[in-house]
């Protein structure tokens, strides 16, 4: 066997947890999918919820329109959770739930459903994402203002460390920061700052709330905090990033929270690799990108992922089908079982390049962390961080546009044979049956009819009472509500009434204007057309529905401003009538809508209708986002002037189109004459 000098480990390491981020339609269909995935060798579950569940609305709520069961499974009550987990051995399963604003609620449903299966809380393993600050910064499924949200998080953590000790009650996410454009330094710095905000909130809450939490409670809390990170295609630096995070995390535990035991300070993370860089153009190339990104989180033993889920080749086209996800799972299995990756101790140990990279990243992160600290910590610095992310993303796109950053098949080497992968009748993606929404609506009504109304009313009253009492933990009342048959929307509504609601900053106002690079002609054209219009060309960028994908809208808004337009952008999660009202009141010349969550078929016609109702029906509308070709045609037929998708990566070209559209609709000659 191996001699002491051998670079090999005496035993190969156990592979990481292998998951597939999955779920759609209703609980029953998702349960079938999970069981099939487990049979294929998947070792953990990763639940994708639909947007109404994530933001706290029942399937029959007005805001849920077009979104039910689309991008994840709809879970409206205990009955749904039972079906979702049916036949899955929860005492052995490790379940990750991507759930944030409503994390306490979904955890409660999980706990009760497990109990009914005969599995006690202290046996449960898994993760609730539960990181609200990154929802404000990137992901968009927030519900309550920062203060009460931090309390909810602190309450779930305080509850979990004593009652569900093997559960990770929070996953601090850097993943979504990179997806919103963060540089490696920003990804490290902001996620650690977010972790500090959470830990401080828990510490404060433990000291002021009732109940005995035990001696070493902060050690245990620290030890239960895991991360959910990203890894881009620059996989060497990305690996260094993870080592840098591990170093900073250990240091934070020691210095700020006095965590004595080394095992509690270990940097534990799960990962979904970068999806922002996956392209619509030549989508087959994405498979290589995903493989290289997977190396970033597996190569070095001392900073290796505990759990991995990979996107699929068709990421930028639409939702993956089971086969697409299987293809990505196989990549993990090849990496773990065919290669020799798991046979060695840390292969970067002693590498000057790696150590140098780590040192650089740590230094950069410290600087950025102190900036956030000066602003009063992550909660206070949300506006600042959001602005910084938008600025970084703008820089990323600028480099792609001018060719500094090569994206094979998109801005270079674009010649291609037709791809057989997208030739099928389904266009290579999963489309959720529109009947699901109707079924889910009917089902939640049936559920409400069958439960004990008094028990529900009492549970909701108790929940509201506890919410008003800052010294009490919200988890017990939440678990009681789950048991009483309360619905997701009712739980969230009770809290909205006490806590109020919140709109996150857009980050676009802070972005300084770009230098003229490539913009001179656009600016001149905007000036000329504005002169002819009588006032400056004005654009409204709108995000209808629950969709939180803001990158595209933000970058279009900023670029239009840089081209000289006046721009209204009010952020995510607006109703069609809010958008139409803004368009009419603001007297805009053109409306640009952005939808990536797949609800365009319902929401775009609704916006057009609302514009008609507000008397702004002459205003031309363009649409961008994840819009399959077949839908683009029907949107154009409904009156949309143009449809853009990720393959339209040249922002200036789209802006030029928009300027020309405004000119044409107002009878102004499109090119400069004389």
């Amino acid at each position: 066997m191996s001699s002491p000098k051998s670079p090999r480990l005496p035993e190969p390491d156990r592979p990481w947890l292998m998951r597939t981020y999955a779920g759609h339609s209703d609980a029953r269909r998702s349960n079938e999918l999970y069981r099939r995935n487990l049979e294929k060798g998947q070792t953990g579950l990763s639940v994708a919820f639909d947007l109404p569940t994530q933001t706290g609305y029942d399937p029959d709520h007005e805001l849920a329109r077009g979104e039910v069961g689309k991008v994840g499974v709809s879970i409206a009550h205990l009955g749904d959770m039972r079906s979702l987990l049916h036949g899955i051995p929860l005492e052995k399963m490790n379940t990750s739930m991507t759930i944030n604003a409503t994390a306490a609620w979904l955890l409660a449903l999980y706990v009760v459903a497990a109990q009914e299966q005969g599995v006690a809380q202290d046996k449960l393993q898994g993760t609730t994402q539960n990181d609200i600050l990154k929802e404000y910064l990137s992901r968009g499924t927030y519900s309550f203002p920062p203060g009460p949200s931090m309390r909810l998080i602190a309450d779930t953590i305080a509850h979990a460390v004593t009652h569900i000790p093997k559960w990770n009650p929070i996953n601090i996410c850097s993943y979504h920061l990179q997806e919103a454009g963060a540089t490696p330094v920003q990804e490290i710095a902001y996620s650690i700052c977010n972790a500090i905000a959470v830990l401080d909130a828990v510490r404060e809450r433990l000291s002021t709330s009732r109940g005995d939490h035990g001696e070493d409670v902060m050690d245990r809390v620290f030890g239960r905090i895991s991360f959910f990170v990203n890894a881009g295609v620059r996989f060497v630096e990305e690996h260094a990033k993870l080592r840098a995070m591990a170093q900073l995390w250990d240091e934070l535990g020691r210095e700020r929270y006095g965590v004595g035991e080394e095992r509690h300070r270990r940097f534990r993370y799960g990962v979904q690799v970068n999806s922002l860089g996956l392209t619509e153009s030549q989508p087959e190339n994405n498979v290589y990108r995903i493989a290289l990104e997977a190396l970033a989180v597996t190569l070095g033993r001392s900073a290796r992922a505990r759990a991995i889920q990979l996107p699929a080749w068709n990421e930028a086209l639409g939702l993956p089908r089971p086969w697409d996800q299987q293809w990505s799972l196989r990549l993990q299995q090849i990496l773990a079982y065919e290669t020799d990756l798991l046979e060695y101790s840390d292969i970067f140990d002693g590498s000057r390049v790696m150590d140098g990279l780590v040192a650089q990243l740590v230094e950069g992160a410290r600087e950025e962390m102190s900036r956030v600290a000066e602003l009063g910590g992550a909660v206070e610095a949300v506006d600042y961080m959001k602005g910084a992310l938008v600025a970084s993303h703008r820089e990323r796109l600028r480099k792609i546009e001018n060719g500094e950053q090569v994206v094979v098949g998109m801005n270079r080497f674009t010649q291609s044979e037709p791809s057989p992968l997208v030739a099928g009748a389904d266009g290579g993606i999963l489309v959720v049956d529109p009947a699901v929404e109707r079924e889910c609506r009917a089902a939640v009504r049936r559920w409400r009819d069958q439960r004990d109304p008094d028990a529900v009313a009492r549970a909701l009253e108790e929940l509201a009472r506890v919410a008003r009492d800052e010294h009490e933990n919200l988890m017990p009342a939440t678990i009681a509500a789950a048991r009483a048959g309360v619905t997701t929307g009712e739980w969230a509504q009770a809290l909205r009434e006490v806590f109020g609601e919140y709109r996150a900053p857009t980050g676009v106002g802070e972005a300084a204007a770009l230098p003229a690079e490539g913009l001179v002609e656009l600016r001149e054209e905007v000036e000329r057309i504005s002169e002819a219009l009588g006032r400056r060309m004005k654009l409204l960028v709108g995000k209808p529905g629950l969709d939180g994908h803001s990158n595209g809208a933000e970058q279009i808004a900023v670029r239009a401003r840089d081209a000289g337009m006046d721009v209204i952008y009010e952020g995510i999660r607006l109703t069609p009538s809010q958008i139409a009202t803004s368009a009419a009141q603001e007297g805009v010349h053109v409306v640009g809508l952005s939808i990536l969550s797949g609800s365009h078929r319902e929401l775009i016609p609704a916006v057009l209708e609302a514009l008609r109702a507000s008397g702004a029906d002459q205003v031309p509308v363009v649409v961008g986002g994840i819009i399959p070709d077949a839908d683009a045609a029907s949107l154009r037929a409904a009156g949309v002037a143009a449809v853009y998708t990720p393959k339209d990566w040249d922002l200036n070209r789209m802006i030029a189109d928009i300027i020309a559209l405004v000119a044409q609709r107002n009878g102004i000659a499109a090119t400069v004459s004389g």
Partner: protein
Amino acid sequence: MNGPPIGSAELAARLRERDTTVAPAVLNLLESRSPAMRAQAEAMVRATSPAALGAEAGAHLIGITGPPGVGKSSLLSQLLAAWRQRDRSVAVLAVDPTSRRSGGALLGDRARIDVDPADRAVFVRSTATSGRLGGLAAPTRAAASALAVAFDVVVIETVGVGQSETEVADVADTVAVVVQPGSGDVLQFLKAGIMEIPDVLVVAKADLGAAARRSLADLGATLHSLHAADTALVAVSSIPPPTGIDELIAALDAHRASLDISARRLHARRMQALADFASEHGERGLRAVGGHRGAERYLAEQDRGLDVPALVRLLEERAGG
């Protein structure tokens, strides 16, 4: 855009009937720089002037000003809800800075102001400064006067301004200055006399606790030492649960009740005429009417009933003659 333009006479008539739905068209017209539109705009201003109405427009004209990011828009959002509860119709004119480099602007206030799209008695319009100093956009004054005919409350949110850009004081009946807790700027400006004492001082972000309480105390002491102890001083929080909003509304109402409205509006019209004249004819034009001071003195001698276009014309004649 938005349908065939409605003629100025009809716009004026509908404003006089307090039809709030013409507000977008009114703004489209007033923002336009095309000569034909400007003639129409002037006609509309005339037809809604106090001379034409036979009285000052009834709205309460309120200016909200203060440094960038202090919480002006968030506060407006809360005020708006509270005014609607009192059944008052509200128009908001939000002014944002234009980027010098590109000429464009991101109009960000609206994102912080919650509007019920079904509520026709609320109107929010964002306008960029187009490089103008002073905190307002070129059409803001005229828009405020026109909308004051149809709405109960017209609020102007200025760009986040420093101490020297308080043009809004010439337009509004009541000016509220919003102060960042823990920042001594306003205090210093007041003490040094750089800034005029506002009608209402608002300490924002009261939920931040100690810093807000300290600012409140410091400002109170300063007002006292400046013999302005009756200036209203209110602390508000605009994030849920909002606090201080009713108190602020009471302070705004009390100030309005104490005003000689016709004197204040007369002053506002004269200042607007001067501003319009200056933006049209520049420094040289101003010199020709005896500078700012000289022009103000000259305007003060004119008939109280004259509307803004007429006053501008008088200035132009004087400069030309």
